[in-house]
Every structure is written in structure tokens, then in C-alpha cells.
């Protein structure tokens, strides 16, 4: 500070704003440490100890030694290969579909936007059942039709293969990626693209270097999220890969926990930490890629995203979307819908027509109790997670706080850990929680777990949106005297509302489907829908599970309708 002799030296004042900021950051850091680092610490202990927490044993590196074996290395390479192929294909498709929906005059875009996302909301076990019936080499409907049409007996498609595993994973990845990137396409300032064109760049160069270039924070985040989720994907590999000897890391972990006389948690957790280290390499790559660059597309200047006039080609793009929806939505959902009216899915005889599955679900008190609990947890969990994620993303993207990298790393942690291992971490952490807080055995244990699981997605969704907002908007608000919270709420959150809404819906439905942690934390009276679905499925009631899945899809339509209304209202308001 510059001082002048003879001038009254300013008295050291109490800087309430700076102190409040520090306390806020400390609370944020502590929250993330409790949510993510604490369960991870329990898992780390498990990976370094011959017995799980609470049992006498010794520390050893046996789990990590076993992880480095040849078999695991081959499986890891296999896993990375499958996930990479799946993510590249899904990303290409999602970018194309998002461009069609957001930046062209393709007919019925609003309806297509909702339909394209539907596969994401269907429980994977049901789409697996549907695809098993459609594309099994022995008697699959597609292969029967192929043989009938061509006379060729060799099957056209075989879902029990690498291709089948990748295809089933893409059913979820494509709509997931589409949801994450379509908003960024919509919030693209056309003046940037027009400048490129006026400077002589071709349409393709402009798309590649300007449109996609400006979307790098969103697309790289989405790519990493999807790739990591692919590495941790379980159902597709278990159902379509394991029977024909295709092993991935998660099926190895599953085998260590479930197929041993005594579960080998030490090796299972060590393997999961091995994946985590590799995945952090991707995050660091993203930091280097994005570091020091600007991606502002939303500034104080008003604009309307440019829509490409496709002429006759708009019917081609329309056909592409319809084909995607027909294959990924029509075929599996059609099976579920038709199957729900028959005694058994796949046996479509008039004598087997029935409404008994709808009646059974309607009269099942457990389903309704679980639905009530799940909706409550979904609403609270998605809202709390998005608010927490929004604040964390703000600190990461829009401040120079020294702890922002620590916050980002902490926020990534739950996404890096396979669900079935993380669920064990929650169980150990909450049940062995020292002190008077009784978390295990309550509904709140599930809520805390869901917030933890959703935080990485919330942070990535909001980070991508905040990265597109120019600083002048925020500065303008604060210059006019608005406090930080008002600016955050009325400017940043209002402008990032489409991303907030998409993130909220994604997290809400992730909660509706989450099983790994739920099954380890629920108690009688606190049942949640995925657990009841698992019970019905194990009981052989696939048709009742179909009814529940169709109910969830109806919920999707309702939520998307409300979301679009809210987005429109907020955008008009802002």
C-alpha cells in the first residue's frame, strides 16, 4: 500500500467481503471433502488393507500388485478400446443430431429433440432384454427377418459380440452427449461464424474451427464424461460381452466381489483406483487443451442463433433423426409397450393378452412407497446437486481462487470410481462415521450419496455453460451494486438456465436409476425405485418392470415439457 507522510494512514479495516469469501470457500472445500474425499479415503484404506474397514488385518500392497498382472493389463486395454470406439461413434452421432436440432430448419425439431433423448431414461436391463430378443444370432427377430428376406442362414447381427457391447453402450451415450451439447449449439453467437465466412473461410472450415472450436469446453467435458462412463460401464459388457469371453475392468471388479467365496475388496478397490489415476490423465489433458483460451459466445450483445436453411435436404436430416429414433427408441420401447400387455414379453398370442401387469404395479404398495421416496430424493438431490455444482463451477471457471483446482479434482472424484465400488465406499463411510451423527440407516444417507454421485456431472454441465458467458455481464451487474449472490442468481444462473435444466434432469433420472449405492444404503421403509425394480426383475417380472419403465418415460415427457416452458419463461424474462 502506498502511504504519504503527513497523511492520515488508513486504519486497518475489517474486510467483511474478503472474510466472507474465504469462509464460503472453506465451507465449499469442506463440503466436497466430506462428500467425495471421505468415502474415497475409506476405499483407499480398503485397497491398502488385507481386510475391509472394521476388521483386524494388515496393510499391504497385494491389491496393487495383483492389479499390475498381465490379465488385468489386457482387460484394461480392451476396456479403453471399447469405450473409445463407443465414445467417438456416439460423439459424432450426437454432434450431428445436435446440429440438426439446434442449427437447421429440419421439421419437427422440438419433438425430435425429446425423442432422441428417450433411450437415456430406459433402464439398461430392459433395453438389453429388448436387444437380446431382436439381435441374438439364434432366433433374433432381425436375423429371422434377414433370413426370410434373403434366404441366407448366417445371422446378420449378433448382439453377443464387441459390436453388440458397443452398440448397447451407444444407446445411452448418444442421448447423454446430445443432451450435454445441444444447449451449446443453441447459445452460439452467429456473428462469430459470420465473421469467419466473411473472412473467406468455407462453411466446413467455419463449422470445424469456429463452431466446434468455441464449443471445446462443452464437447471435451462431454467426451471425457462419456468416455469415463464407458470405462465404468457394466451392464452391456456383463450381458453381451461376458458370455462370449469379452471382459472389461468392471466385470473383473464384479467378479472379484461377487464370484469369490470371500469377496476380494482389496484387489477390487485397487483396480478401481488404478482406473481413477488413468482417468485423471484425461482431465489434465483437458486443462492443457483449454488453458488460457477464451470461449465466450454469450455476451451483452443480443443475438439469435443462425439457422441453416437446408431446402430439400431438411427432409434428409429429418429422416436421419427419425431413423435414429426408430432404431434406438421405437424398437426397444415398442417391445416394452407391446410386452406389457401380454402375459410374457416376446410371446404375443391373443390368449396371452392381459392387463395384469398394470394391475399388479398399481396395487403394489412397495412400488408406490419406493416411487414416493425416489421422487423426493430425486427432487431434493437434483436441486441440491445442481446448486452445489453451480457454485463449484463458478469458483473453478470465473475466479482465480487458489483452491479452484482442488475443488475441480474433488468434484471429479466420484465420476472416476465405478459405481459398484463407490457404493461400498458410501456404506463403509456412513456406517463407520465416528461421532453422534447417525447417517447409515436413514433416508438422508441416500440423499448424501446421490448428491455426491451427481456433483461431477453438475460441475461439468455448469462449467461448460459458465465458460461461454462473457465477464462483462457479471461485471455490469456488480458495478450496478448487485451483491455476489444476486449476480450469481439473476445473471449467471439465468443465462446458464438451459444447462442447469438439462443437468437437473440428467441427475434426477440418474437418481431414479441408481442401484449400486441404493442397494447398500436403503432400509425398510426407505426403499427406492431401482431396488424395487431389481427385486421385480429377480422375481422374473420383466413385464412389471416394463410397466414401471413406461411410467418413467411418461415422466420424461412431463419433465421435458415443464423444462421447455421454464426455459422459455426464463429466457424471455432475462
Amino acid at each position, binding site marked *: 500500500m502506498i502511504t504519504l507522510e503527513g497523511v492520515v494512514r488508513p486504519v486497518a479495516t475489517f474486510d467483511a467481503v474478503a472474510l466472507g469469501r474465504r469462509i464460503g470457500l472453506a465451507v465449499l472445500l469442506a463440503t466436497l471433502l466430506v462428500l467425495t474425499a471421505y468415502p474415497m479415503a475409506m476405499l483407499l484404506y480398503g485397497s491398502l488393507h488385507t481386510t475391509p474397514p472394521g476388521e483386524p488385518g494388515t496393510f499391504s500392497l497385494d491389491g496393487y500388485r495383483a492389479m499390475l498382472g498381465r490379465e488385468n493389463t489386457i482387460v484394461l486395454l480392451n476396456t479403453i478400446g471399447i469405450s473409445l470406439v463407443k465414445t467417438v461413434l456416439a460423439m459424432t452421432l450426437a454432434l450431428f443430431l445436435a446440429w440438426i436440432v439446434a442449427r437447421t430448419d429440419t421439421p419437427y425439431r422440438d419433438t425430435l429433440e425429446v425423442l432422441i433423448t428417450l433411450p437415456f431414461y430406459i433402464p439398461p436391463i430392459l433395453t438389453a432384454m429388448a436387444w437380446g430378443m431382436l439381435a441374438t444370432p439364434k432366433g433374433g427377430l432381425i436375423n429371422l427377418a434377414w433370413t426370410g428376406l434373403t434366404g441366407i442362414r448366417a445371422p446378420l447381427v449378433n448382439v453377443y459380440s464387441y459390436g453388440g457391447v458397443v452398440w448397447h453402450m451407444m444407446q445411452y451415450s448418444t442421448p447423454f452427449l446430445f443432451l450435454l451439447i445441444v444447449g451449446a449449439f443453441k447459445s452460439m453467437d452467429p456473428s462469430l461464424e459470420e465473421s469467419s465466412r466473411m473472412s473467406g473461410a468455407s462453411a466446413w472450415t467455419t463449422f470445424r474451427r469456429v463452431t466446434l472450436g468455441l464449443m471445446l469446453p462443452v464437447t471435451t467435458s462431454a467426451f471425457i464424461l462419456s468416455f469415463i462412463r464407458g470405462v465404468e460401464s457394466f451392464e452391456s459388457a456383463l450381458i453381451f460381452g461376458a*458370455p462370449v469371453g469379452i471382459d472389461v475392468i468392471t466385470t473383473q471388479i464384479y467378479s472379484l466381489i461377487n*464370484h469369490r*467365496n470371500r469377496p476380494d475388496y482389496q484387489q477390487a478397490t485397487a483396480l478401481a483406483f488404478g482406473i481413477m489415476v488413468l482417468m485423471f490423465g484425461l482431465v489434465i489433458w483437458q486443462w492443457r487443451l483449454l488453458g488460457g483460451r477464451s470461449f465466450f459466445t454469450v455476451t451483452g450483445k443480443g443475438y439469435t442463433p443462425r439457422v441453416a436453411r437446408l431446402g430439400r435436404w431438411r427432409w434428409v436430416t429429418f429422416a436421419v433423426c427419425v431413423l435414429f429414433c426408430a432404431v434406438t427408441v421405437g424398437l426397444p420401447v415398442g417391445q416394452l409397450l407391446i410386452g406389457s400387455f401380454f402375459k410374457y414379453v416376446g410371446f404375443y398370442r391373443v390368449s396371452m393378452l392381459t392387463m395384469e401387469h398394470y394391475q399388479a404395479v398399481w396395487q403394489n404398495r412397495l412400488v408406490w412407497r419406493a416411487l414416493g421416496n425416489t421422487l423426493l430424493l430425486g427432487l431434493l438431490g437434483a436441486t441440491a446437486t445442481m446448486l452445489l455444482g453451480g457454485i463449484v463451477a463458478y469458483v473453478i471457471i470465473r475466479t482465480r481462487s487458489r483452491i479452484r483446482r482442488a475443488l475441480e479434482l474433488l468434484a471429479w472424484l466420484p465420476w472416476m470410481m465405478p459405481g459398484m465400488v463407490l457404493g461400498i465406499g458410501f456404506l463403509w463411510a456412513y456406517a463407520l462415521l465416528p461421532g453422534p451423527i447417525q447417517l447409515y*440407516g436413514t433416508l438422508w444417507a441416500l440423499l448424501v450419496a446421490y448428491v455426491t454421485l451427481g456433483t461431477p456431472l453438475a460441475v461439468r454441465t455448469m462449467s461448460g455453460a459458465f465458460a461461454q458467458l462473457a465477464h462483462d455481464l457479471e461485471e455490469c451487474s456488480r458495478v450496478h451494486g448487485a451483491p455476489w449472490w444476486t449476480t450469481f442468481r439473476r445473471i449467471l444462473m439465468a443465462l446458464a438456465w438451459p444447462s442447469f435444466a438439462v443437468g437437473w434432469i440428467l441427475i434426477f433420472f440418474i437418481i431414479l436409476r441408481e442401484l449400486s449405492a441404493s442397494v447398500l444404503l436403503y432400509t425398510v*421403509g426407505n426403499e427406492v425405485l431401482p431396488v424395487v425394480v431389481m427385486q421385480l426383475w*429377480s422375481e422374473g*417380472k420383466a413385464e412389471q418392470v416394463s410397466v414401471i419403465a413406461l411410467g418413467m418415460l411418461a415422466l420424461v415427457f412431463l419433465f421435458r415439457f415443464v423444462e421447455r416452458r421454464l426455459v422459455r419463461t426464463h429466457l424471455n424474462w432475462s
Partner: protein
Amino acid sequence: MLTRRSVLRLAALTPLAFAAGPAAAQAPMDAEWKKLVDAAKKEGKVVVYNGAVGTPTLPKIAAAFEARYGIRMELLEARASELRERIRTEQASGKVLGDVSHNGSTTTALQLADGTFQPHGPLPNAGKPAAPFRVDEIRVPIYVIPYGILVNSEMVKPAEEPKSWKDVLDPRWKGQILADDMRALGGGAVFFMVTYQKFGREFHEKLAQQQPHMNRELRGNYRRIARGEYPVYLPFGLADILELKGLPVKVVIAAEGAPYVRFDGAVFKNAPHPNAARLLLDFFMSDEVQTIFANLGFPPVIGGLDAKMTAEARPLAQAKLLGTTDPKLQEEMLKLAKQIYK
């Protein structure tokens, strides 16, 4: 009211007398048991941790238990490995929420070795189970799941049906067998262990040459057989045939008998409702409950129920039993199965 400590003391003093149920002990037993029933009613509920997810039996037994005693039987279901880790963590942390374990005998034996359970104390029905089933200090046998062969009745004519386990080695079934994975815990592992011990390694080496398609999607597999994707499935839980009415499938009980897994009940150490837990263990062995199991196709562990069985369930519940698993050999058997079925 009976406290947990008094029950344990009583059990420790006279376990054999109560297990055998001699006449001399009957009168004091009646009085003690009445006290226990009153104490259980005051507890109001009992929480059962069930490792057989989706079993149709326990909800019926819960209804019967509540009707008989006015005590709510609550069910918490999870897959065996998840349930086991929950129970272990609850015991380690002292935050015990469950009262009674309902799980396969292998998992129960492993948990017994870990010190997960407490002695159940005297039970009036303890003498009822018929050989080879018996009650010990900790466990009560509840019922068994026997395994057979499921065939597609439109693809396999009666004359071609495999009548014996060894018939599935016939070359005609090469590439035609769908199987529950024998390399993982479950029905497949039960089948592997029992048939390995009865028929030797050669049987499985030949079965491996038949190239069975293996997975752990039990219910999905039944539908695949019914749809005609494969004509033969093994090992098939016999009672599940009652859930497949109207589909073109048929169950075959192999001539040598059915490998089986026994389900046991036991009370968790420091169970929050110890009296209701003990009452439920005894109830499991009552004629009422055993008849429920029998009529759902599960062989009961007590005798004398033939007249109460339905015609539909009788052949399933009376299936000849071949043998069951030995927990001490489980790890070795899983390794062997992985060697043989690569």
C-alpha cells in the same frame, strides 16, 4: 420381558435339551416360550435380511407371521455379496439394523465363521426337521432349492428329453445348452460342485466340450429357452416352473436326483428385536410355513406334509435330492470350474 442376555444365558446352559425337545423340559419350556412370545409382540417387528432377491415365499410368510402373532416381518433384500458386506459393516460398526438372516447355507456358514450370529436359544420346533436337515445352536434349516433341467417342449420331443445328467453329454446337444454360469456363486456353482463330486472331473470336461453358453441372467435364460433360442437349460430351480405357466417349457428331474442348496435362518449378533427374531426362526419350521414352501415347489425340511401339498407342487417338493454344497470346498470348486470352462 426376556432380555437378550437372559435368552443367551438360557441357551448356553441347555442348548441340547432344547434342541432335542425332551418331554421333561416341555412344561418350563411352554412357560418360557409364552414369555418370549409376549416379549416378541412388544418388540412389534422383525427385520429379515434376505439374500434370495425376489423370492415369492417370504412375502407369504410375512403375511402368515403377522396374522398369527401380530408382529410385522419386514424384508430387506439385496444380492448375496451386497447383503453380506452390509451385515459385516453393521456388525463392525455396531449399527445393527437386521434381526434375521435368510440366506444360502454356504454364505451362512461363512458368516458363522465370521461370528456374525448369536445362538438362537431353545425353539419348540427344533426337533421337527427330518434328516439330513437339523437345527444347530445358531442355524435353522428353512427349505431347499433343488435343480433340474429345463427343456423347450416344442423343440425337444419327450423321447429325446435328457433323463439323466449324463444325457446332456450326448453330441446332439453340442452348442444347444444354455447354462447358469458355473464359475460364479449361484445355482451353477451348486450344480458344478455336486456333480463334480458325484460324477468326477471327466463329466465336466465332456460337458465343457458341449460348449454351453453360460451367463447369470437366470430369468432371462428361462425366456430364451421358451423362445427357442436354445432347447436345454441347466441347472434349473425346479420351483421356478410354476412361474412359467403357459410357456412351451418343461422341467426334467434327472434320474440321479437333484443337486440342491439349503436355505438357513439365523439371528444376527446384537439384533434389535431378538425375541421376535427367535419366534420367527421357530415359525419357519412350523407346519404352516413348511406347507407354504412345499406348495410353492420347494422341498420342505420337515416330514408329514404330503397330504397338504397340491398335485402341482408335489413332484417338485418331493424331488429326490442328489447332494449339496460344502462351504469348505467352495473356493477350490470355483477355481476348478474356471479351469474347465474357459
